[in-house]
């Protein structure tokens, strides 16, 4: 190699890298200092364990290969993969190549980047041809991703995205720099190859082509300058643009493996999640508010951006269904719902007074089953009476905790971000439940169930009535006959995505009816729009959404629509387009009771 290879054009690149690393590391140190002690402890304890290896594996899969993104949208996944993995391989193989050539383990960091400029004749180097071919191949790979990125910007529909994120000022510089990096590299390498003929199938061919048109030998140095400058610009702008997501996601993956979790408050973990969002835009089409009501600013891709830019995000924070469709699809696995509620909390009036002085100890009674109907179920008496019939059919003892009405479970308050108030209700109900000492606790409302699971400490098997019915069926405590109905099932958001109960209601329905598939179900089911998570949506807007959801659910023209949530039932029944029944009502109407002739189906319990 002789003298140290150097040319002033390596400076923009080198300065950029040093600047970026300094900015990122100092930012990370500042951030880590503010972490609560317990979280820092978790990181310390996890660092030298196998968790780090698992985290590395996930970093490889997600940050480089973008596996989850592939699953969500293959073209978009490919695009992200070419940039991340393609570039990574270019750096890795470039490093190996330059080290093999120089025969030394130490390299100046810029050396592999500008290798093609410094070295024109690799004869004698091991695997010389293979490397030349490989590097050209990788460059082509990245360029194909770039082509997709350009298409995404000009016509996102071709990539299966109806809507995509728009570019903001700060990101624009970084984005253009990133786009220019690889074409400039191609040009620089091709021009050099036009002079020295050392390139591979891509750069050599392209070089020859340029040679025909332009005086290549004068262009070599300017071309490398241009390449170095765009690299430098990208690195300098990275810590201040959305590309911060690249390092942030890596950190986030490690933190998750060390056991850090989102808390109730908008804290440092939330910030790391926020910065990990690449604004890929996948959540935008999934959000019914964006796709049906043109509320484009609501999905996390935009919402997070407002928070990051310190713009007013109050409207965005409150106008969300908390349906979880965005969280389910997010390829980075960001807890989008938690962040939404944390932000709501920030906007709420913090009140430390005792909230509900009128809540005095309620009546408690021990029984095998404790039944909590919930506020919404009180508005659908058919579900209540069906549950009572089912309990009686099982022969187990039960106590109906809120038969005469009771306090709310606290979840609507929780979702509104008023945590102190929610806590007061939780304490009230917790006290009654503790005194009841049930074996099984059943609720008819998935919203309550979610609250019981997350906010309460319940020493009993806690389940939704659909799970309870399934359990009783499996234990032969109840027997069901076929109802003869063709039904479609609507997954309530809180029960499905919220609590991952997808199978039990379906198992029950298979026993009872002819269950029809629908286009979007289970994880991908649509929200009925009744959600208590949203306070702002107007009634016409809710109706519009509910009707779109019904369009999808009624595609197969079922005899009845079955759901497992009183609020979904009420919302979907509101438009009078079909019969909407709760799974408990269908079960109660088709119970085979011992010693009693089986009842005729369709009892008048299908009240709306």
């Amino acid at each position: 190699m002789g003298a140290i290879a150097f040319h002033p054009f390596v400076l923009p690149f080198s300065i950029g890298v040093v600047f970026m690393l300094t900015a990122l590391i100092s930012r990370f140190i500042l951030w880590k200092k503010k972490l609560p002690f317990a979280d820092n402890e978790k990181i310390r304890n996890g660092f030298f364990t196998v968790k780090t290896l698992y985290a590395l594996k996930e970093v490889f899969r997600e940050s480089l290969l973008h596996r989850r993104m592939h699953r969500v949208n293959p073209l978009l996944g490919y695009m992200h993969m070419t940039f991340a993995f393609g570039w990574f391989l270019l750096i890795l193989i470039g490093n190996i190549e330059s080290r093999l050539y120089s025969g030394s383990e130490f390299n100046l960091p810029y050396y592999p980047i500008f290798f093609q400029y410094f070295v024109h004749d690799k004869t004698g180097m091991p695997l010389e041809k293979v490397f030349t071919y490989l590097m050209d191949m990788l460059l082509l790979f990245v360029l194909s991703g770039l082509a997709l990125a350009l298409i995404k910007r000009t016509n996102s529909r071709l990539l299966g995205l109806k809507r995509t994120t728009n570019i903001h000022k700060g990101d624009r510089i970084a984005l253009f720099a990133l786009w220019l990096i690889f074409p400039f590299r191609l040009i620089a390498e091709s021009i050099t190859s036009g002079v020295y003929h050392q390139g591979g199938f891509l750069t050599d061919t392209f070089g020859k082509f340029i040679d025909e048109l332009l005086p290549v030998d004068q262009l070599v140095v300017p071309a490398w300058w241009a390449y170095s400058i765009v690299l430098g610009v990208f690195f300098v702008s990275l810590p201040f643009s959305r590309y911060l997501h690249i390092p942030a996601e890596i950190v986030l993956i490690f933190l998750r493996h060390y056991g850090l979790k989102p808390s109730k408050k908008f804290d440092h973990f939330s910030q790391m999640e926020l910065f990990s969002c690449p604004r890929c835009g996948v959540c935008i089409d999934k959000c019914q508010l964006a796709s049906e009501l043109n509320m484009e600013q609501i999905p996390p891709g935009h919402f997070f951006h407002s928070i990051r830019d310190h713009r007013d995000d109050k409207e965005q924070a409150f106008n969300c269904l908390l349906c979880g469709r965005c969280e389910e699809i997010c390829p980075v696995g960001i807890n989008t719902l938690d962040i939404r509620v944390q932000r709501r909390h920030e906007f709420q009036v913090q009140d430390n007074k005792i909230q509900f002085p009128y809540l005095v100890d309620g009546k408690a009674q021990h029984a095998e089953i404790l039944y909590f109907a919930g506020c919404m179920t009180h508005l659908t008496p058919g579900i209540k009476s069906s549950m009572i019939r089912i309990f009686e059919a099982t022969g187990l003892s039960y106590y109906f905790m809120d038969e005469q009405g009771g306090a709310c479970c606290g979840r609507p308050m929780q979702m509104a971000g008023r945590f102190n108030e929610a806590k007061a209700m939780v304490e009230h109900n917790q006290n009654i439940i503790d005194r009841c000492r049930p074996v099984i606790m059943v609720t008819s409302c998935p919203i309550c169930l979610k609250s019981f699971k997350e906010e309460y400490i319940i020493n009993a098997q806690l389940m939704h009535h659909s799970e309870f019915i399934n359990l009783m069926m499996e234990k032969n405590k109840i027997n069901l006959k076929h109802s003869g109905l063709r039904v479609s099932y609507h997954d309530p958001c809180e029960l499905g995505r919220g609590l991952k109960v997808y199978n039990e209601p379906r198992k029950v329905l298979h026993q009872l009816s002819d269950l029809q598939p629908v286009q979007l179900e289970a994880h991908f089911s649509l929200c009925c729009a009744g959600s208590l998570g949203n306070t702002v949506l107007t009634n016409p807007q809710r109706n519009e959404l509910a009707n779109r959801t019904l369009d999808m659910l009624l595609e197969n023209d079922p005899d009845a629509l079955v759901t497992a949530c009183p609020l979904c039932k009420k919302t979907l029944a509101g438009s009078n387009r079909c019969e909407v029944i709760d799974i408990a009502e269908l079960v109660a109407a088709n119970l085979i009771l011992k010693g009693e002739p089986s009842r005729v189906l369709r009892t008048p319990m299908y009240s709306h």
Partner: protein
Amino acid sequence: MINFGYTSNKDRQIVFDENDRSVYQILQSKEPSVDICIQCGTCSSTCTTGQFTQFSLRQIIVNIHRGEMDFINEDIRKCMFCGKCQLVCPRSVNTRNIIQVLITILN
């Protein structure tokens, strides 16, 4: 004056015209559906909080409409936010947002 052992009550007439209705106006701008409330009381009759107290959303709406703001601030904090009122309201008033907006503007 001769003391006959009784007094006359203070004038209890309320002059609504003199009341400050600004809270209602703000509420109206932030949650326009408050305007279509017919004060039927369906919300109050189903209200979860109403089982425990005298709390009545209908009354709150009426009072704010008239500019009678006594106790409103304490009262709205009794609501449990359960959403029953919203489902039963025959006029589809966005009841929970009324509470939410009031809590924000009264603090």
